[in-house]
């Protein structure tokens, strides 16, 4: 019933889509982690205003659907004179949206560290920034690897929304192929398979990383 005969022709196109999907997801994870760390610090700050700002940021970027964020950045901002290239808009939106989730994931990590760790670092004279960078962050990242990997998988899938700003990635290519050949099932199944492979690799990487780190840290 299914007819995959057109697939060989389509594969190079799908490969282009895969590359774009991977590129965007990677950028988003990196941006999301960096902004996430900053926002997390803001969220845990002792200054009310800073904390409030972080809370607002999280509500906004976690609450508004990514598609809407994309549409607003790309199609509404030009109306007030801000013109952002599609790729930048897409990376920024996915990255910032991811950062809101990362913030919460990382916050859990920071809160779960025993306070004694910080105290012992203070007592040997490390300053706040050094404690954060050398003592806390590496542990937080280790503790939150499963959450981060989860988020990375969600990002790979969320990247399908960026076709709304004219960037062609895996889902869009599959849709184009599906409608041009009138074979939606074949191409959607193929796309699903590709996503599955990508995401399995990400989660396998996560397990590997966790095992590698935990081998030493948890006896």
């Amino acid at each position, binding site marked *: 019933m299914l007819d995959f005969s057109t697939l060989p022709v389509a594969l190079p196109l799908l490969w282009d889509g895969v590359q774009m999907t991977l590129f965007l997801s990677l950028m988003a994870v990196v941006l999301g982690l960096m902004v996430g760390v900053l926002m997390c610090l803001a969220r845990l700050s002792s200054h009310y205003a800073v904390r409030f700002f972080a809370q607002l940021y999280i509500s906004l970027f976690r609450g508004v659907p990514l598609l809407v964020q994309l549409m607003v950045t790309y199609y509404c901002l030009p109306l007030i004179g801000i013109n952002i290239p599609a790729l930048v808009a897409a990376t920024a939106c996915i990255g910032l949206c991811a950062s809101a989730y990362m913030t919460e994931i990382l916050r859990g990590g920071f809160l779960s560290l025993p306070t004694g760790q910080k105290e012992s670092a203070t007592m040997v004279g490390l300053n706040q920034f050094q404690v954060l960078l050398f003592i806390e962050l590496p542990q937080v990242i280790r503790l939150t690897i499963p959450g981060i990997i989860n988020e990375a998988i969600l990002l790979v899938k969320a990247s399908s929304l960026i076709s709304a700003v004219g960037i062609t990635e895996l889902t869009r290519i599959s849709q184009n192929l599906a409608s041009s*050949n009138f074979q939606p099932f074949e191409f959607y199944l193929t796309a699903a398979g590709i996503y599955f492979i990508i995401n399995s690799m990400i989660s396998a990487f996560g397990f590997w990383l966790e095992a590698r780190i935990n081998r030493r840290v948890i006896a």
Partner: protein
Amino acid sequence: DVLSDVKSKGELIIGTELHFAPFDFLDNGKHAGLNKDFFTEVGKELGVKISYVDLPWPSVLPGLEASKFDMVGGPVTITKERMKRYNFSLPIADASVALLKRKGNSAVTKPEDIAGKPVGAGKGSSQAAQLEDFSTSLETPAEIKLYVDNNSAYSEIMTGRVVAVANSLPNIAYVASQHKNFEVVLPPFGKKTYYGYVTRKNTDSESLLKAINDIIVKMKADGRMEDIQVKWFGNPMDLPTDMIVPQI
């Protein structure tokens, strides 16, 4: 203005959606269709490179307004409402509504047979609006289902959730010619409508619109337009040569 900008950067950027055979689609993995052929000629006439931005349909008109590209090169049905907001080129194809059904389905042999039955159409399309009008004129109105994506709608004919899908004749004719499970229910119904290309409604864009219209006229005169029509519709299409007053 837009035309001189296009010429100075040597590139005309077209926004469209590659989901709409025979105007824009992927053939063996490459962009093909009537629009592609037409704009290739435009490129030659203006001496510029043509590039395309592929967008989901709900993003196409917002994209035009936000100046993300120079014009919409996907065919848009010319309507009164839309003309208030955008400028249209001369008609480039017939957009009259017809029905697509499962091959051999004897329950629907003429448009009126859809009375009381589930029928699909593209959400927000002028064809959907026409179907709506037509349906209310029937004794028992049809049950209209709106789809975000034409392709899903066509799938529904096979799942049996709808008996037919209304869309523009050129589109469904092409679908039927490519896919042995479908056939077109003739004749078309509703008011006569046409497809045109769209530019922004401002003075900057007028020069571009005029250039496009000039090329359409020129191509009609030298027969290039007819070649393209035969290639994609199977036969030449009779189109008005002046700007029309839309009936809907």
